[in-house]
């Protein structure tokens, strides 16, 4: 019996402790990080999350997926060592077998009443958003999209951008709660001359959207097509109006929302070289058309394609719209 207590019991204890090491002690409890211009190798601490790591090492929580994707992990686990690429490894979504393309969806009217030709019902919209969520799509900010266009950012494979071209109240009252519920954000392009008018959103409401991660872009002042007056009025007057529509809408948004406005949507989607040049000249980083199709990184920044979602879009059409990878032999 003595042998049991003096030799075997300690042995059992040692074995028990060794076996339980995984339960009781983290593998590494000291902060470790190797960092250079290209990467950081980090030992995850108990308080870390992928978001906090992304904020620390990549400057934005929006890039948490980047760490998850590279390390093939779902979440941060204390003691785990991860490699964080500090620069995009697949700039422009370029791969051996193709390149990424990013669908920008345009909703021009969502109604709580009956759907019409251009307007889709709130239920349809909710269903579409649910579809996006169930299928793993994410939305990103327009600045991230701009980074993608300039090969400075990489985006999750299933990325879409949702845009709402309207100053009307349905954006705030109908679309916003649905998007929020489904965990998406959107870019809202407003005609500044209409803000605060009956049936339109107020600056306060736009400010709420902006604070909640929605981006407010410009769609001119009057909501008139920018090409409309070209042949109808005095050219000098037309040019003056054009400058005003493009420049002052940006200034007004920045003035009211105290945030920079870098994105423009051509009212009615119509544009030409003159309008494009004036949009560039006014300091916008990108502008959105209504030309159909998805967007590879090499799309013209001032002719970004958008897919107009109407009542006639069925599920098959929706799936077709959401293709995010174009096959190509890039070996």
């Amino acid at each position, binding site marked *: 019996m003595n042998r049991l207590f003096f030799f075997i019991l300690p042995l059992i204890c040692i074995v028990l402790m060794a076996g339980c090491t995984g339960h009781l002690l983290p593998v590494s409890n000291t902060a470790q990080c190797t960092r250079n211009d290209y990467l950081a190798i980090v030992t995850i601490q108990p308080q870390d999350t992928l978001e906090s790591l992304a904020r620390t090492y990549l400057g934005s929580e929006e890039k948490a997926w980047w760490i998850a994707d590279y390390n093939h992990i779902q979440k941060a686990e204390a003691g785990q060592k991860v490699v964080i690429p500090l620069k995009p490894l697949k700039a422009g979504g370029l791969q051996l077998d193709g390149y990424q393309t990013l669908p920008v969806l345009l909703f021009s009217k969502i109604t709580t009443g009956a759907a019409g030709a251009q307007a889709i019902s709130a239920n349809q919209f909710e269903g579409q958003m649910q579809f996006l969520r169930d299928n793993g799509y994410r939305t990103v900010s327009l600045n991230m999209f701009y980074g993608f266009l300039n090969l400075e950012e990489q985006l999750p494979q299933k990325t879409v951008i949702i845009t709402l071209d309207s100053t009307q109240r349905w954006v705030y009252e109908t679309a916003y709660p649905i998007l929020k519920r489904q965990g998406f954000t959107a870019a809202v392009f407003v005609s500044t001359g209409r803000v605060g008018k009956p049936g339109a959103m107020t600056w306060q409401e736009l400010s709420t959207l902006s604070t909640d991660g929605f981006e407010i872009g410009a769609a001119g002042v009057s909501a008139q097509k920018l090409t409309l007056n070209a042949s109808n009025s005095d050219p000098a007057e037309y040019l003056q109006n054009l400058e005003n529509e493009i420049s002052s809408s940006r200034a007004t948004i920045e003035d009211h929302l105290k945030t920079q406005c870098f994105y423009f949507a051509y009212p009615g989607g119509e544009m030409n070289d003159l309008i494009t040049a004036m949009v560039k000249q006014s300091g916008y980083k990108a502008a959105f058309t209504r030309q159909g199709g998805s967007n590879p990184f090499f799309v*013209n920044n001032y002719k970004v394609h958008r897919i107009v979602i109407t009542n006639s879009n069925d599920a098959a059409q929706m799936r077709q719209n959401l293709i995010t990878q174009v096959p190509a032999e890039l070996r």
Partner: protein
Amino acid sequence: MNWRPLLLLLFCGLWLQGCAGAFQNSPGKGTESETPVTAQSYRQKALDLERQGELQQALFAWRVVAALTPDDSAVPDIIKTLERGIANAGDIHYKKGVTFYQQGNFSEARREFLIALRLDPEDKRAVTFLKTWLQYPNQKIFKVQRGDSYFKIATEEYNDPSKANIIAAFNDLDPQKPLSVDAVLLLPNLSPDQLVPRKETISLLQKAQKAMDNRRYQEVLAITAKIKSGGPEGADCQALSDSAHFALGNAMMEKKNYSSALEYFTKVSPGFKGREMAIAKAEFNIQQQSTEEKLRTAQESFNQKEFFAAIQLTGEILAQDASNHKAKELSDAAHYALGKQLLDQGQEAKAIEVLSVLAHDYKDTAQLLNQAHARRNALAEEYYRKGVKYFLNEELEQAIASWEQTLILNPNHPKARQDIDNASRLLEKWRGMEQTDKKGND
């Protein structure tokens, strides 16, 4: 009881449980494709990626290996070789893309540029082709030659000078910066109703020219400023603005308002004929005006017997122009008068300092200096004698102070320095003795 089988069973059970616990909670758990962060696994990953042709990914994996094994000298070489290989492969695809583009095979050109960018995302040339030239394969282009400006191109191509900034913006260029010779510009397609020149630009230029012809230069400047505020002003507008500034500068020169003249001349564009000479003349005259003003003030100070101020002002003039005779004369007169005044006030040392600046043959400067030196020496002697008296009275500290005054007045006094030394030594000795006595008493 035989414990061995039981213990063995227990041991195995615990071992297995322990291991299972460890595995369940081991860090790095994830999907099957997760790569453990070790040099060995990343080395293998890098080699696999290289084999698959994913060279950028392989390069990154090698960089991870380098970070994990900083002492492994072979890895940096592997990285360098791979970087070179990627750059070469990218370049080959870029060149292929250019060839396809020139042949009008835009789809193949695009594919090659995409491969070039997949290999080397930093290749700006491929980006330019993809995002510019392939976007506008049928757009009219313009090759910049010497002397071209946005204004000129807008006038020639669209008969509308106001489109200068539109051309710049369309090409993502800064309209305020000059165009590079041989640069290729895309010319925006503008419909006829967008090409009507802005009436006001043309009429403003005509108005400015008319004002120029009638020598209404301020009006010219007002009009050209208005044109400039609307965008790149163009050569005609700039030429009118320059001519008006230059003419106004000359008018100010005639009025001897040299500062205003200089202001106008500096606003003329560099390279304008006569600009540099005009600026130099204006600057010279400003200098002259400043000198004359100072001289006038110096003379006034002298007249009011403020000799020191006169000396300062003339000194400033002479520091810039030593050959200014008027300043020199006034400076000498001021020094002389001040020296004499100081001598009268009994401030011999200061008088000597002031008078020494003058030439000895200036008026009776030599005589005044002798007088000052003599008075100073006499005073020095007086202090010396006082010192001797103190010394004899065994007041050594006062004696030393007096002799020091002597030396201040006459640094070459034959005895004072030696006497100070002797007195100091004696004083030291006395103090030593006093110290000893004090200790003895204690």
